[in-house]
């Protein structure tokens, strides 16, 4: 569906992307993460045919979007800019794009999308009078006006209230169920964690991590262990002991609770250590590693 092979890009001799490789299959929701300036937008622009790669290939449906008008009609996009005209009404904006994409049943399609965006009552109002969230929802409707097989979404939830964010997430999941492919460029790690089947983390122009979310959690993030002690003395002793252990990389006290980051996954060993030193542990649990932990580990690792 989307195939990136050894993709590199230079601007005026400065390398911004180096040897990117990844594949996105039909029906996948692909999360593309990275700090500001990592090259996410540049990658997206190359795939969309807005920029030419310095070397390598970016193919969608086996072809190049820059030169193939037919392929572009199968792709929907929502970039940082909503792609809407402030001087036109919500209806006119959707109508314009519907005509450009040669959509049939235009009226029905537009009405359904306006309904989805909750803008039916304001369909005749100029988009310039809309809030950022309303524009984002209308922009998303615009991107879907021609039932695209692939959707490129750049921060789709930006500017939306929690309810609308939930709606967008549900929509993306629904589209994936219909075998549509989603390329999601986002900073919202929680959103990505909830909906993406596969992610890539880009930093300084190279892909640092590329796998399923679950696999990356296991691969990149150090195991975290939380213990709760019954009193202050026990908590202090436990904290001192944990700090002295060479397989504990970080240790944070919080009242009677201590969070320890381990260099390797060895929870039983740490429990045995505590018990054998006469420390009474009330509760011990592994903490679920979030995508944020993975992301920060990957980005930090590269920076250091």
């Amino acid at each position, binding site marked *: 569906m989307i195939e990136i092979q050894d993709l590199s890009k230079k*601007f005026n001799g400065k390398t911004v992307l180096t040897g990117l490789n990844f594949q996105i299959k039909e029906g996948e929701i692909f999360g593309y993460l990275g700090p500001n300036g990592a090259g996410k937008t540049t990658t997206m*622009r190359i795939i*969309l*045919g*807005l*920029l*030419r790669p310095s070397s390598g290939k970016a193919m969608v449906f086996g072809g190049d*979007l*820059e030169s193939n*008008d*037919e392929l*572009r*009609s199968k*792709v929907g*996009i929502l*970039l*940082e*800019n*909503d*792609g*809407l*005209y402030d*001087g*036109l009404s919500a209806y*006119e904006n959707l109508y*314009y*794009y519907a*005509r*450009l*994409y*040669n959509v049939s049943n235009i009226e029905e399609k537009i009405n359904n999308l306006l309904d989805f965006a909750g803008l039916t009552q304001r369909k005749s109002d*100029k988009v310039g009078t809309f809030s950022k969230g309303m524009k984002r929802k209308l922009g998303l409707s*615009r991107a879907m006006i021609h039932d695209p097989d692939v959707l490129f979404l750049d921060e789709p939830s930006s500017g939306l209230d929690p309810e609308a964010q939930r709606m967008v997430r549900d929509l993306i999941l629904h589209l994936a169920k219909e075998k549509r492919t989603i390329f999601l460029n986002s900073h919202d790690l929680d959103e990505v964690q909830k909906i993406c089947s596969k992610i890539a983390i880009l930093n300084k122009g190279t892909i640092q991590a590329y796998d399923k979310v679950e696999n990356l959690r296991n691969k990149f993030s150090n195991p975290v262990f939380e213990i709760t002690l019954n009193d202050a003395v026990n908590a202090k002793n436990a904290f001192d002991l944990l700090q002295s252990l060479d397989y504990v990389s970080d240790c944070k006290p919080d009242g009677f609770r201590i969070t320890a980051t381990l260099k390797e996954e060895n929870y039983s060993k740490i429990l045995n250590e505590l018990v054998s030193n006469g420390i009474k542990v009330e509760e011990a649990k592994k903490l679920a590693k979030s995508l944020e932990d993975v992301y920060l580990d990957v980005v930090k690792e590269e920076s250091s």
Partner: protein
Amino acid sequence: MTLSKIFIVAKKEMIEIIKTKSQMLVGLFFALWFSVMSAPVVKTVDEAAVFDTFNNLMFYFVLMMGIFMAYMFSGKVFFNEKREGNIETLLCTPLSLRQIWFGKVVGVSIVAYLIALLSAALITIIANIFSTSMLLPLPAIFVHIFLVVPAFIAVAVGLLGFGHLLLGMRENQILNISFFIVIFFAFSLPKNVIGGGFAVSWIEVGVLLMVAVLLLVFVSYLTRYLSKERIVTTIA
């Protein structure tokens, strides 16, 4: 299919220009203002020169008005679209870059031409109010208004659109200011063009028509130098 896509873009540009009330009002104000300020000149010349003066006025002012409107609307249609970033979304639709450029040129040219026609009508009405004899344009002036003026408007829109898409934001501001200075200077010339015993004939109209056609071919050729990458990398 190609033509229909061009007309979809053109129609949208026309609607957007017309719906931008402030811009339309400025356009209509200039058409009225220049007509009111220029047409009464027929009252100040000798009886024998009235007819030539009127035709010279139509020859020059309608053309200039059309080019001025082309300048005004091109900024909105090309420059703003690029500055606001909508052009990226448009470039991802199934339209080619040339279709987008051409559609915008057609849309802007039609509105600019309609205002130029309005100024021609206003000049004729006002000149007749100040004249003792009935004043109507010569056949050559009719050809000028119906062929040369729209062709030059299209050239101006095409060139400005090309410049807006090709250049960066700062260069575009310089382009806009330069173009405005040229137009402003051109509007201050009419005394030399309209008076002075000069009379527009088929020769001037024919030469201008040929120049317009050549320029249209040239501008169309220039679009080969536009690329999506060039446009996208000059947005910021």
